[in-house]
């Protein structure tokens, strides 16, 4: 019955109701969108690592090779020893490790970026098996190679050719389309890990800059518990030293440079402001409503409504409006989120993570991982926004109790 009165009042005052619900819902929608955007950028920042099956990549910077002959390490990825890897494996929160060896090979008539990969590890570059466009992926225990399709075209390399790399012979068994493959650790030639390690071990120029023992690597792909990524990254830094280059979703978020990506505080402040505006709108309309209905309140009190009865009535009006505004705000946010999800983001891939010498094709060109902004509104966010709007309603309704208590029942005797 009281509820019936609430609904009747809101309907009777529908202009006011519509204005306050609309104003409030925009505040709520803004709150949801800001948070959804922040989440979306966060998710986007995970993409470059996720597509290679990892949460963290690890390498270590070192000295520049003295001369570009034979097999050398790029200065961005020098030796990570077997002992260091087994220490990293023991860091809490780490659930899996993939390894690779990246070398630049300068043969007489050709330079290669060569990547040695673990054929059967789902973490790391073995994900390339999905991007073989011709031929087949590497087979277990065989000394053979895949070549990147653009490179193959440029140098006329065909399936079944036998190529010589740092004095070793490899039959080409497959072509890989790197334009669709993960942007991290793109190479020209893909070999089994042990063959790449063998090339590194036997290279004098490489050993003179960065001693490399059998079983060592120079790239790590790490899967970790989402909550422990930051602490795990810090632990790795202390194992590998200051020169370690550790890429995490957070480091990509920084590279994105978006306001949302840059700072949680911005999102927090902006959504607080949105909520504050919403509260002000709710309060102002409700307060106006109370003073306009002073006489009505006087009547209620005169016929025996207590202060609490009257306050409850207005509280219900305010909560109901804010609840409706919350629902509308979620709807608006869903529509806006749909629109925003057509936006694309370009995540720059640092040169260190996919080092191409400047004189090779693609050298010096900034690589990007491009994807549609994954904006969606998690149910928890929507629920929280709804809860928040009901809270706003309750808060303003309760504040109005004070206005209401100032209106006296003898108000009814006044007549103009």
């Amino acid at each position: 019955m009281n509820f019936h009165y609430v609904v009747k009042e809101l309907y009777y005052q529908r202009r006011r109701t519509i204005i306050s619900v609309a104003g409030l819902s925009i505040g709520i929608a803004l709150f949801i969108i800001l948070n959804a955007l922040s989440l979306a950028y966060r998710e986007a920042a995970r993409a470059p690592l996720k597509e290679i099956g990892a949460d963290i990549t690890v390498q270590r910077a070192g000295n520049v090779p003295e001369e570009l002959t034979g097999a050398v390490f790029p200065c961005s990825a020098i030796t990570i020893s077997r002992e260091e890897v087994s220490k990293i494996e023991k860091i809490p929160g780490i659930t899996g490790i993939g390894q690779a060896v990246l070398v630049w090979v300068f043969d007489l008539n050709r330079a290669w970026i060569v990547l040695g990969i673990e054929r059967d590890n789902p973490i790391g570059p073995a994900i390339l098996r999905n991007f073989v466009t011709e031929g087949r992926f590497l087979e277990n225990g065989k000394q053979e190679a895949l070549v990147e399709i653009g490179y193959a075209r440029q140098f006329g390399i065909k399936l079944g050719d036998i190529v010589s790399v740092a004095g070793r012979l490899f039959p080409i068994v497959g072509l890989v389309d790197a334009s669709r493959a993960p942007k991290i650790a793109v190479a020209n030639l893909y070999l089994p890990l042990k063959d790449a390690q063998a090339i590194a071990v036997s290279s004098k120029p490489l050993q003179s800059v960065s001693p490399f023992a059998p079983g060592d690597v120079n790239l790590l792909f790490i899967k970790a518990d989402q909550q422990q990524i930051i602490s795990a990254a810090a632990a790795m830094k202390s194992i590998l030293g200051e020169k370690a280059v550790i890429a995490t979703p957070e480091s990509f978020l920084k590279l994105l440079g978006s306001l949302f990506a840059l700072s949680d505080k911005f999102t927090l402040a902006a959504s607080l402001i949105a909520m504050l505006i919403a509260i002000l709108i709710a309060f102002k309309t409700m307060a106006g409503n109370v003073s306009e209905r002073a006489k009505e309140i006087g009547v209620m009190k005169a016929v025996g409504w207590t202060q609490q009865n009257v306050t409850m009535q207005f509280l219900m009006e305010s909560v109901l409006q804010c609840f409706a505004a919350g629902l509308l705000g979620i709807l608006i946010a869903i529509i806006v989120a749909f629109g925003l999800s057509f936006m694309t983001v370009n995540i720059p891939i640092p040169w260190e993570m996919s080092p191409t010498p400047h004189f090779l094709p693609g050298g010096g060109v900034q690589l990007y991982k491009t994807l549609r902004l994954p904006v969606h509104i998690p149910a928890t966010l929507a629920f929280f926004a709804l809860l928040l709007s009901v809270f706003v309603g309750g808060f303003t309704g309760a504040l109005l109790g004070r206005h209401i208590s100032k209106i006296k029942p003898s108000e009814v005797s006044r007549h103009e």
Partner: protein
Amino acid sequence: MNNADILMGTNLSKRFDNLEVVKDVSLTVKEGEFVSLVGKSGCGKTTLLSLLSGLEKPTKGKVILNNKDITGASEDELALFRRDHVGFIFQSFNLIPTLSAWENVALPLFPIKMTGEQRSRRAHDLLNQMEMGHRIEHLPGALSGGEKQRVAIARALINNPKIVFADEPTGNLDSVTGEAIMAILNELHKKKGMTMLMVTHAEELAASADRVIRMKDGEVIA
């Protein structure tokens, strides 16, 4: 009739800022009595009525209503007291514009725990008694002045009050409609034995009461 006193005001004063509007007034109303309070505009009739009915607290003096001293009661205690024992009829009807006729009648019952059907039945009965059975679902805006006042009288009666306070109940009505409303109030008094205190400044209306109290400049003169 030699009934008990139902309303007793003793040495009542009311001061608004520096203006003393009611000055040391004492009066008594007996159960079943119809008393009218007359006097010029601004002489303090409405204020005195508010003091006696517990709408307003006196600056000085004491009010005993239905055997209860309401002088020191809190706002909420007064509200509950009015809800249980007192009915009000106002010059300007004071209906809630959003609520239909029967919902306005039931307004005092909203905070009370009872089924919607109980409320509705009581409101409908009273509206039928006021010959308003055909206007039950109408909003106040769609009712004439006389009809509004009938709704207001029904609202005043919904809690079976011991006493009804009426402040110029015909003041906003033309004379024919006013007479019809007065006829209802007189009948309420005569047939149901309702105790009534009515404020008016029209002598001819006051005449139908058992007793007339006259006020001048905040004081009772007769």
